[in-house]
C-alpha cells in the first residue's frame, strides 16, 4: 500500500494534540440519566487508583444521600468545598484554586454540567475543569446525556423537560476516555423505587415524570450512540495516525447558515448532530445583509449567540456582510468545498414569501451540486427578516414632515393660478422626497399622507373641503400616494445603506489607522501607546495595554489616560486572561462581573500580554457588539508587538553575530601576535639559563620582542578604549611642530638608519587637538611605514595647512597599496604582507583618533611608487592670542 499525501487538517489536529504534553487527561463517566451509578463507578475506580498509589482526591462529589456512595467517599482524600453565600443561601462550591494549589494527579469532579454560583470565576463547572486540565492535572467527571449541548433540544422533545445546564459537545469530544455507565431502564426504575436514587417523597413524581420507561429507553439510546460515536472517532484518529490511504477520501464538510432569528440556535444544534455523525468538518456562517445593518441590536445579539454556540460545538465560524446574501453563502461554501448546507426556515405567511422572496428558496435554486437541508420551526417566527420594518421616528422628524407640507401648500397656492395643476402634484412629490432624505421612513409616510390630504383640501374642487367633486381625481390621489410611498421607502433605504457603509468605513478606517500607526512605531512601548490612544478614541473607553515584566507579572505599559487605576479586584482577571490566553471580564464567560474587559494578545499559541478596556464612568457597561472588532484590534496589536519583539531579537542576533566575528578575528590575531614574541622571549631566556649562545644577542632579542609585545598590548588597549567611547579628547591649543617632534622622538629607534625628511609649514597656527592622541596617530603611521618598507628606504613627513584643515602625511617608497587595499587598510585586523605582522590595529587607531577630532585618515599612492598615509583634522576656531613681550 502506498503512503498517501498528508491531509493538512489531520496533521494539524494531531500536532495540536501532541503539542500539549502538559495537558491533564479527561475521563468522562457518561450516563443516560441520573441514578445509573456514574458517581459510584467513578469512586470505585478512584479507590483502585488509590490502592495503586496514585494521588487521587475528591474535588466535589454529590452523594445525594445515597448510602453506597457515601461509604466510598469516606475513605478518599478530599479538597474542602468553598461556601458561597448567594441571596442568603449558602452553596457549597467546588474550590478551583485549592485544586490548582494542591496539584493532585487526578481530581474527581461530579456534575460536569453544573452552573456555578454567581461570583465564581467561571459561570460553568466545565470551564473550571478546562482550566484544571490546562494546568496539567487529570480530571474524572460525570455527566448525563441530556446535558450535551447538541442534544438539549432532542431531550426536550423526548422528555418534555427543558434542560438548562449544558456542556459543549466539543468539550466531551476532547475527552481522552469516555466510560458509559449503563443499566437497563427496568433496573433503573427498580433502583428508583427502592429509594436508591431519590428520597422517598420524590420517587412517585419522578417515576411518572422524567423516569417514564419510554423516556429512559430513548435517553439510553442517545447515550449509547454517543459513546459509540466517540469510540468511532478514536478509531479514526488511530487510523489517521497510521496514515492509511483509504482515509484520504474527501471529508464531509457541512455549512450551517445562521439567521438573526429564534431559529438560529436550533439550526446550529441540528447541524452539529448531522455533522458529528458524519465526522464532518463544520462551518457556521452569518451573512449580514447590508439592508439589515440598521436592525435592532436584539437580532444581532441572536446571531452572535448562535455563532458562539457554533464555536462551542467545535465549528469554524465566520461573519460576512453582503448585498446578495445567497451569493455570499455559496461563495463561502464553494471556497471550502462544502457538501451540505443547513439552513433554518421560519414558517411565515405565504403572501410575505411571494412579496419578499425567501433566502432559503433562492439558496435551494442556486445551490447547484451542494445539498441543502432545511430545518423548519414549529412556531412561527416572531421576527420577520424583511426590510419592511419601520425604525422608530423622532418628534423632530414628524414636525419636519408637517412643516414641509405646509410650505409646499403655501408655495403651491402662489403658483396655482399661473400654472397647470400637475405642477402642484410635482411640488408635493419634491417635498416628500426632501423629507425622506432628511428623516426616517415613518416621517416620510406621514408627509405623503399629509400631502395627499392637503392637495385635496386646498387645490381640488370643492376647495377647502376634503370631499372631491370630480371622481377623475381619485386615481390621481392613488398614484400620488403610491409614488410617495415608493420614493420614501427608496430614499430611506438608500440612507440606511449609506449609513451602514459609513459605519463600516469608519471601523475599517479605524483599523487601518491603528495598523498604520503601529507599523510606524518602533519598539513595543511605542506600539502599545499608539494602540491604546487609538482604541480609546475609537471605542470611547479607557484602555490599557498590559505586558509582562521580567518576572512575568503584568504591568501596564500604556494607558489611554492617567487614571486607568490599577484596581486590586481587576488585576487577577487580567492575569487570568494572560495565563489562559482567553478573554475575561465583562461581556465574557469568565468572571463576567468584573468592570473591565480583558482580551489576550495572542500570536499562535503564545500570549504576549493583555488589552484591558474599562468604561469611562463607573456603572457604564461595555457594548458586547464591539467585542469582535476589539478582538481584531487585539490581534493586530499582538502581531505588531510580536513584530517589534522579533525585530529587536533580529537586531540583537545580528549584533551578536557581528561581535562574535570580531571576537574570533581578535582571538586569532591575539594568539598569533602575542604568541610569536612570547616564543622568542621564552626561547632566548631559556638559552640564557642554559648559558648557551651569545648572551648579549639573546638578551637583545628578549628586549626587542618584549617591546613588540608591549606595543601589541598597547594597540589593543587603545583600540578598545577608542571604540568604547571611553576616550574624550582633551582639546588644547597645540603646536603641530611640537607634536611631530614628539612622534619622531618616540620612533627614534625604529627610524634609525633611514633618511627621514621632515617639513612642517612654518606658518601653521596652533591647532585645537589632543596632543598625546595625535602624536600616537603619527607614531602609528611612522611604525606602519617602517614595517612595510625595507630598511634604509627614506620616509618623508610633512605638515601643511589646507584651510580649514591641517594635513599631516607620512610618505614611504615601498611596495605601495592596491586601490582595494587603500579602501580597507584602515579597518581593524587588516594585515598586509611582511613577516613582522602587527595586529593591523595601528591604522585603525589612527583613523579612530582622526575621527574623534572630526577629521579623517586616508591612504594614497606615492608618485613614483610607495604609499602615502595622511591624517587631517580641523585647525579649530578661536585660537588664543599671546601678548607680545
Amino acid at each position, binding site marked *: 500500500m502506498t503512503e498517501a499525501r498528508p491531509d493538512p487538517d489531520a496533521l494539524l489536529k494531531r500536532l495540536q494534540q501532541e503539542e500539549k504534553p502538559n495537558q491533564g487527561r479527561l475521563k468522562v463517566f457518561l450516563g443516560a440519566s441520573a441514578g445509573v451509578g456514574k458517581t459510584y463507578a467513578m469512586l470505585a475506580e478512584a479507590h483502585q487508583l488509590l490502592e495503586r498509589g496514585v494521588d487521587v482526591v475528591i474535588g466535589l462529589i454529590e452523594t445525594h444521600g445515597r448510602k453506597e456512595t457515601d461509604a466510598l467517599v469516606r475513605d478518599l482524600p478530599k479538597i474542602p468545598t468553598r461556601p458561597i453565600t448567594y441571596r442568603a443561601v449558602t452553596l457549597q462550591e467546588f474550590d478551583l484554586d485549592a485544586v490548582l494549589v494542591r496539584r493532585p494527579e487526578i481530581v474527581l469532579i461530579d456534575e460536569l454540567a453544573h452552573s456555578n454560583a454567581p461570583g465564581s470565576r467561571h459561570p460553568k463547572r466545565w470551564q473550571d475543569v478546562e482550566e484544571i486540565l490546562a494546568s496539567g492535572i487529570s480530571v474524572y467527571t460525570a455527566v448525563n446525556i441530556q446535558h450535551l449541548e447538541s442534544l438539549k433540544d432532542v431531550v426536550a422533545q423526548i422528555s418534555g423537560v427543558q434542560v438548562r445546564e449544558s456542556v459543549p459537545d466539543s468539550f466531551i469530544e476532547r475527552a481522552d476516555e469516555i466510560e458509559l455507565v449503563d443499566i437497563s431502564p427496568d433496573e433503573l426504575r427498580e433502583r428508583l423505587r427502592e429509594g436508591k436514587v431519590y428520597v422517598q417523597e420524590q420517587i412517585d413524581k419522578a417515576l411518572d415524570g422524567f423516569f417514564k420507561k419510554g423516556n429512559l429507553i430513548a435517553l439510553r439510546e442517545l447515550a449509547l450512540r454517543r459513546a459509540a460515536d466517540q469510540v468511532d472517532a478514536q478509531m479514526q484518529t488511530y487510523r489517521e495516525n497510521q496514515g492509511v490511504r483509504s482515509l484520504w477520501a474527501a471529508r464531509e464538510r457541512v455549512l450551517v447558515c445562521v439567521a438573526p432569528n429564534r431559529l438560529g440556535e436550533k439550526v446550529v444544534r441540528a447541524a452539529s448532530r448531522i455533522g458529528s455523525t458524519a465526522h464532518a468538518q463544520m462551518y457556521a456562517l452569518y451573512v449580514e445583509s447590508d439592508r439589515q445593518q440598521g436592525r435592532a441590536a436584539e437580532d444581532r445579539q441572536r446571531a452572535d449567540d448562535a455563532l458562539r454556540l457554533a464555536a462551542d460545538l467545535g465549528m469554524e465560524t465566520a461573519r460576512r456582510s453582503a448585498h446578495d446574501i445567497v451569493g455570499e453563502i455559496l461563495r463561502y461554501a464553494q471556497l471550502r468545498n462544502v457538501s451540505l448546507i443547513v439552513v433554518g426556515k421560519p414558517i411565515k405567511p405565504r403572501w410575505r414569501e411571494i412579496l419578499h422572496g425567501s433566502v432559503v428558496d433562492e439558496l435551494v435554486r442556486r445551490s447547484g451540486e451542494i445539498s441543502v437541508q432545511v430545518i423548519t420551526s414549529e412556531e412561527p417566527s416572531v421576527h420577520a427578516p424583511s426590510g419592511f420594518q419601520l425604525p422608530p421616528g423622532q418628534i423632530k422628524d414628524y414636525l419636519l414632515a408637517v412643516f414641509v407640507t405646509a410650505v409646499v401648500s403655501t408655495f403651491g397656492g402662489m403658483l396655482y393660478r399661473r400654472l397647470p395643476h400637475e405642477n402642484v402634484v410635482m411640488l408635493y412629490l419634491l417635498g416628500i422626497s426632501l423629507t425622506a432624505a432628511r428623516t426616517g421612513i415613518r416621517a416620510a409616510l406621514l408627509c405623503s399622507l399629509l400631502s395627499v390630504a392637503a392637495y385635496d383640501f386646498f387645490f381640488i374642487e370643492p376647495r377647502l373641503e376634503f370631499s372631491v367633486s370630480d371622481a377623475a381625481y381619485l386615481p390621481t390621489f392613488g398614484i400620488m400616494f403610491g409614488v410617495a410611498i415608493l420614493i420614501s421607502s427608496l430614499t430611506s433605504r438608500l440612507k440606511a445603506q449609506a449609513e451602514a457603509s459609513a459605519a463600516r468605513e469608519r471601523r475599517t478606517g479605524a483599523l487601518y489607522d491603528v495598523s498604520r500607526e503601529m507599523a510606524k512605531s518602533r519598539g513595543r512601548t511605542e506600539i502599545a501607546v499608539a494602540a491604546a490612544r487609538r482604541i480609546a478614541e475609537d471605542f470611547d473607553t479607557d484602555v490599557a495595554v498590559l505586558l509582562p515584566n521580567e518576572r512575568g507579572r503584568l504591568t501596564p505599559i500604556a494607558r489611554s489616560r492617567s487614571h486607568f487605576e490599577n484596581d486590586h479586584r481587576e488585576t487577577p482577571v487580567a492575569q487570568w486572561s494572560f495565563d489562559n490566553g482567553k478573554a475575561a471580564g465583562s461581556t465574557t464567560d469568565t468572571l463576567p462581573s468584573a468592570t473591565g474587559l480583558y482580551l489576550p494578545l495572542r500570536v499562535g499559541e503564545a500570549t504576549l500580554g493583555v488589552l484591558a478596556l474599562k468604561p469611562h464612568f463607573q456603572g457604564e457597561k461595555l457594548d458586547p457588539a464591539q467585542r469582535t472588532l476589539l478582538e481584531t484590534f487585539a490581534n493586530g496589536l499582538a502581531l505588531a508587538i510580536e513584530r517589534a519583539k522579533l525585530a529587536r531579537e533580529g537586531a540583537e542576533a545580528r549584533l551578536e553575530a557581528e561581535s562574535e566575528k570580531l571576537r574570533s578575528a581578535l582571538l586569532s590575531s591575539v594568539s598569533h601576535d602575542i604568541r610569536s614574541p612570547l616564543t622568542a622571549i621564552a626561547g632566548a631566556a631559556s638559552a640564557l639559563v642554559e648559558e648557551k649562545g651569545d648572551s648579549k644577542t639573546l638578551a637583545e632579542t628578549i628586549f626587542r620582542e618584549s617591546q613588540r609585545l608591549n606595543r601589541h598590548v598597547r594597540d589593543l588597549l587603545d583600540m578598545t578604549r577608542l571604540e568604547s567611547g571611553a576616550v574624550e579628547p582633551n582639546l588644547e591649543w597645540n603646536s603641530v611642530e611640537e607634536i*611631530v*617632534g614628539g612622534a619622531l622622538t618616540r620612533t627614534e629607534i625604529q627610524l634609525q638608519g633611514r633618511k627621514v625628511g621632515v617639513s612642517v609649514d612654518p606658518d601653521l597656527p596652533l591647532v585645537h587637538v589632543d596632543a598625546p592622541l595625535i602624536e600616537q596617530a603619527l607614531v602609528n603611521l611612522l611604525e606602519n611605514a617602517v614595517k612595510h618598507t625595507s630598511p634604509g628606504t627614506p620616509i618623508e613627513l610633512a605638515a601643511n595647512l589646507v584651510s580649514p584643515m591641517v594635513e599631516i602625511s607620512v610618505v614611504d617608497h615601498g611596495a605601495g597599496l592596491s586601490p582595494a587595499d587603500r579602501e580597507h587598510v584602515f579597518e581593524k585586523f587588516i594585515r598586509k604582507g611582511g613577516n613582522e605582522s602587527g595586529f593591523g590595529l595601528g591604522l585603525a587607531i589612527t583613523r579612530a583618533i582622526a575621527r574623534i577630532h572630526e577629521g579623517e585618515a586616508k591612504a594614497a599612492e606615492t608618485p613614483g611608487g610607495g604609499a602615502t598615509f595622511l591624517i587631517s583634522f580641523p585647525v579649530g576656531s578661536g585660537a588664543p592670542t*599671546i601678548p607680545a613681550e
Partner: protein
Amino acid sequence: MSNKTRILMIEDERPIRAFIRASLGDSDFELKEAENAREGMALVAQLNPQVVLLDLGLPDIDGIDVTRQLREWTDVPIIVLSARGQEKDKVDALDAGADDYLTKPFSLGELMARIRVALRRHRGHQVTEEPVFEAHGVRVDLSTRQVFKDGVEIHLTPIEYKFLVLLIRHAGRVVTHKQILTEVWGPAYAHENHYLRVYSAQLRHKLESDAARPKLVTTEAGVGYRLRVE
C-alpha cells in the same frame, strides 16, 4: 654606614621588584623593598634613602597621596613608576612633588638614567649650583645670562630665558606644564598651556638645529617638557 647609594623601592608587583633587585643588587646601590605604601613610608623615615622608587598603583594608599605625605617632611627624590595611559596620574604626582616618572615597561638603562639625574639634583642642593650649563651645542652662562649656540651668542627674550633657566635647573627631569606656567608667568597662568607651545617653539627655533626634531627641549606629550642632557 656603607657609602653605597640607598634606594627604597615601594612596589607591590613581585616580578618587578625581582627584576630591579637583580639589576641593581650587585652594583653601587643598596636596595630596600617595601610591598605597600604604609610599610614604604615607615621605611623612608627609618632608612633615610637617597632615592625612592614609588609605584603609582599600590593596593593600600594612592601613590599621589603617598607623594604628598612624603613631601610634607622630606625632599628625598621620588621617581614614580606608572603604566601608560595614566598621564593625569603622572602629572598629579609630579605636581604633588615627585621628581620624575618612568612608564612601564622600562629598560634598566632608562631607570639608571633617571636615578642618576635624581641623585645629581639631590647633591646639587647640598653643593652650589653650576654657573654654566652645556649640552647639545648650547652653552648657557647663568652668571652673565648669556646663551650661545655653537659658539654664537643668541638673543633670548626675558620670558624665553626664564623658561630655559627653569628647564636647566631641572635638567634631565620632566617639568610639568603647571610648574612652568606658575614659575615663569605666575600662578594666574597655571592653565594657559598654549603659552608653552609658543615659547617652546621659539626656544627650539633659536636653540635646535632642527626644530621639528628637537634634541634639547623635548616634549612629553600630555605631561610637560624635559631638557635632555645625554
